[in-house]
């Protein structure tokens, strides 16, 4: 069980990394793109810009 947990932790760290909101935002953005269809190309660039800004600005705020 401990090994299984360690493997799960490793996979989480490997795929999701330091900020889980990035993975969540990517999954949600892909879902919205699929819902919009042909015209949904703008969703991913906007979500990437927003989540990247949010993630780094939060680190800057935490240091103050």
């Amino acid at each position, binding site marked *: 069980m401990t090994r299984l947990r360690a493997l799960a932790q490793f996979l989480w760290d490997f795929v999701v990394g330091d900020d889980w909101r*990035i993975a969540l935002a990517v999954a949600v953005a892909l879902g919205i793109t699929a819902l919009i*269809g042909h015209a949904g190309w703008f969703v991913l*660039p906007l979500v*990437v810009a927003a989540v*990247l800004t949010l993630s*780094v600005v939060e680190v800057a705020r935490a240091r103050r």
Partner: protein
Amino acid sequence: MSATQLGLAVSVFLACSVEAVEALTIVLAVGSTRSWRSAFTGVGVALLALAAITAALGPALTAIPLNTLRVVVGALLLIFGLQWLRKAILRSSGLKALHDEAAAFAEETVAAREAGEIPRERLDAYSFLIAFKGSFLEGLEVVFIALTFGANQHDVGLAAIAAAIAVIVVVLAGAALRAPLARVPENTMKFVVGVMLTSFGIFWGGEGAGAHWPGADASLLWVIPVIALFSLGLVSGLRRTERLGVAA
């Protein structure tokens, strides 16, 4: 070579170089302090394990239908790319310490010296494990990047060649210097890799999810510069905020 193939080759080469530099530091530290034979055995076993993963996942990935593959690959490239880019932005703006190969080497060397006696007749378990772990973990991400990029472009061979050239260049440089490659601009390379992975992830993820890019493949010509400029803008903004914060 098309622009997309060039993007694939450059991204895999840079990603692999950065990870190889970090693995080299670990192997040099345990090898020079304890046992070269054990360290090289660890690297060899790690390379075999990475080759086995590549052989198992490569054909499986290429068997997935193209649109599904593009969504999966797009999502993975985006998540990996944004992680690389996030770290590179934080390091460039001074919010996170730069990765220092000389310091990492010194730290690994101290740990290796304190790890007990070195067996003369048999394999040194410490050197073997540290070299294995370092090479395997640093290599795993490169394997994923090379496989996902390569499978989507139906050019795993090109990705493998780019990765192999990067490893050979780093190993030759390490062998010539017999020291960690502290002068390699790791953060700049990570920044470029992050921009490329994120851009290709946006493009392929969008296509796989059913979006039609205006200008089709040519849209990468604006997606990559836009992501690069946006990231540089974040670095500049964070630096300014840091300076104002220090001055206040």
